[in-house]
């Protein structure tokens, strides 16, 4: 147990304090004892575990299996939307770490997505007549797309740590506007306004992902292989985020969010915590931006704008602030809802694609989308995650649900 000795200081903060650790019994309770009783935590370790309840384990497993198999079950064009939803989830998780867990509202998220996209395009794309491109492998490009935005996030964070709340929101909006301007004038990187540039090539570890592969009887089309890679990255980053959230760093995030002065008094280094939150969130955004650019196929400097930032804010708020699983639900909601609205509006009479009538079908869809956001947030403060909790509690308490 020399491990315990060296880690005593951090143990106290990670909930594995020696005094409270039932290490001898590993927190396990004999089955005959626990039968018929509520499932209670018997150690901090299990309380803070990655998947701290049995249903969570099963749900997670089910989710992983289902999402991994999804592209084989749905039409090919739906795979595009699912990939987009995963990318939004990655970016949304990054923003949730910063805004949900650490409480630093940011409207500049799209800027970091853009940084990631252009990092990927420059290092992994083909050179054009005026644009740079080094045609590197994605194995190098994707880490770079996390590192470079991460570093920039780290560098601008000290500016942002001085202000709070909506002041910070508008300050980060300034970052976005400044970034958009830089993207527009850095023509060798971005191709300039109105024309844009091509994106990173889909080559991972020397394997050309634009080809169709077969594993036994399973045919993997380029869309599916890109989806699977996105899913893998999403899974790794999602687990990492959950681990950050339940670690010492995550708790210092929460302390800073709830009352930064109090956190500081308790010994949380404010500057370091906020800076780290910005850096990690930017790195997530960078990866999401790189993947997004490769999914779209062509990027222009104007697209990394306030609307994109707001989309990610919506993902976080609709999903549920400071929950990783909620963010995934939020991303699915924001990306997939328009498609479902489209399916629904087919059944509404007197609404057509032409602009002659009262309103056309696309206008109706967009208006309904906006209003649904309003309804969701006003009715359920904790977002989709809150709805899930309510459903869960209903069944947990059954038959005494009220």
């Amino acid at each position, binding site marked *: 147990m020399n491990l315990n000795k060296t880690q005593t200081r951090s143990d106290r903060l990670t909930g594995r304090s020696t005094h409270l650790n039932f290490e001898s019994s590993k927190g396990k309770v004999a089955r005959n004892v626990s039968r018929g009783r509520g499932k209670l935590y018997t150690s901090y370790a299990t309380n803070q575990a990655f998947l701290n309840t049995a249903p969570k384990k099963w749900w997670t497993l089910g989710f992983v299996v289902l999402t991994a198999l999804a592209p084989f079950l749905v039409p090919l064009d739906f795979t595009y939307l699912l990939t987009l939803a995963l990318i939004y989830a990655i970016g949304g998780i990054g923003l949730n770490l910063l805004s949900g867990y650490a409480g630093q509202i940011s409207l500049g998220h799209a800027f970091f997505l853009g940084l990631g996209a252009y990092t990927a395009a420059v290092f992994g794309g083909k050179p054009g007549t005026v644009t740079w491109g080094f045609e590197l492998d994605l194995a190098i490009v994707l880490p770079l797309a996390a590192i470079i935005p991460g570093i920039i996030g780290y560098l601008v964070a000290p500016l942002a740590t001085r202000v709070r709340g909506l002041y910070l929101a508008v300050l980060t909006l300034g970052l976005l506007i400044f970034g958009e301007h830089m993207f527009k004038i850095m023509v060798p990187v971005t191709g300039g306004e109105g024309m844009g540039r091509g994106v990173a090539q889909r080559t991972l570890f020397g394997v050309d992902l634009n080809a169709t*592969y077969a594993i036994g009887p399973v045919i993997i089309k380029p869309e599916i292989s890109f989806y699977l890679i996105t899913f893998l990255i999403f899974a790794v980053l999602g687990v990492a985020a959950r681990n950050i959230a339940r670690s010492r760093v995550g708790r210092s995030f929460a302390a800073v969010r709830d009352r930064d002065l109090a956190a500081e008094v308790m010994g949380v280094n404010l500057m370091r915590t906020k800076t780290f939150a910005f850096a990690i969130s930017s790195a997530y955004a960078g990866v999401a931006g790189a993947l997004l650019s490769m999914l779209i196929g*062509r990027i222009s400097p104007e697209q990394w704008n306030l609307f994109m930032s707001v989309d990610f804010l919506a993902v976080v708020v609709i999903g549920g602030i400071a929950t990783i699983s909620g963010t995934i639900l939020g991303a699915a909601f924001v990306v997939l809802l328009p498609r479902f609205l489209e399916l629904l509006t087919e059944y509404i009479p007197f609404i057509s694609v*032409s602009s002659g009538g009262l309103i056309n079908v696309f206008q109706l869809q967009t208006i309904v989308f906006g209003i649904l956001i309003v309804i969701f947030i006003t009715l359920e403060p904790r977002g989709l995650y809150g709805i899930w909790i309510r459903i869960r509690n209903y069944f947990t308490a059954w038959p005494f649900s009220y």
Partner: protein
Amino acid sequence: MTLRRRSRTALAALAIALLPLTACTQVDGGDDPAPSPPPSDSGDSGATELVTGQGVTEEACPDAINPDNGCIYLGVLSDLTEGPFAALAVPITDAQGDFWRLVNERGGLNGYDIDIDKNTRDTKYIADEHAAQYNQISGNIAAIAQTLGTVNTESVLDDMIAKSLVAVPTTWWSGFAFDANDGGIVMESGYSYCTEAIVGLDWFADNHGKPASVQAVGYPGDYGGDSAEGVKRWAEVNGAELKEYVPTAPNQVAGNQDAVVSKVAAANPDVVVLGIGPAETAEIIGKLAAGGFTGRFMGALPTWNPALLDSPAAGAITGLYNHMSPYQNWDGDSKGIADMKEALAGELPTNGGYIIGWAIGYPMKAALEKALENNDISPEGIASVVDGLVASYEGMAPDQKYGGDPQANAIQSVYVGQPNAEVELGMETIAQAYVGTTFDQTDYSAACVASN
């Protein structure tokens, strides 16, 4: 401890999961579905049987005008709600609906009606939205009747080429005239902005005296950038002084056009070629005129809107501005314009976008007719007729020839308009299909503004 063991287990699981990847083999990329059986009889019996592919059905279109006809589905990807080009794209899309409705009312094409409503999608002029909507419809259509925006179109162009989906763009970027950029499947309609500027300045020199200095104002990139390159080429050939190009942005981004006004006033050119939006056009012309500027303005196709005649700058616009269009204006006398007015049944469209939408229906109609003639309306069949196709605009513009030498085949004729409140839609044509001499002296062998 437990954590460590767990991570090891996870790693092992990952390795197992990745194992099959080593066993994977690359297969042929082709996933072309076999062409579906042709409709048994489609009115007139051809010698060979008709080949059909995706987007063509034997069943009639939804709400068909001719219930006995088959149906050809075309896609539309446009900016229909709140994107920056919605003001123009909405009437364009309306016109396309009316265009094909008239075609159907006149019996359709060789036993087929055409439907565009089912696969019309709103892209909001956002590239990822465009790509998403494209992915949704690309498997259900025979061709694309309208695709808006250069960046958006290029984002899915590789896939369009792979699927042989012929498309008519609602962008007049010069690049789509060249197979190197579009694989020969994008059927640009009319001239490019680059050509427009060159020919427009020829017209200006003929009618207002040869300008000693010229200047371009425009949105950077495929639109204003292309136009500015045309201005530059005209100045080079004709020895006029080229004042520095003024890139700008729409008012929603830039706030107002004061930066342009101060720069143009300082340069004081004889003529300014505008590649911007209508609101910005009004503001720039009005403010420059109020500041004593005496030069004139040539506006590209999207710079005009009849509402400008209600603006305080109306006087200056009527006096100093001419509009350039690849198609006849509302006051045109061609069969195409007459058909369009028939489809509208006496109503006035909201703006000139309607004429554009109507005109770009013709190249697609020509391609479909030719493909039907060849008995192959699969996407590949339609794509194969584009090279060498001659599309008639029913007099709305000179016939357009696709493929071949872009320089020789480029449409050069400009319809020059003069704002006039007495005329419906406010634009009176003062030069029909004007063709200048400068364009043939320039090198039109690649896109004026390169896509990178």
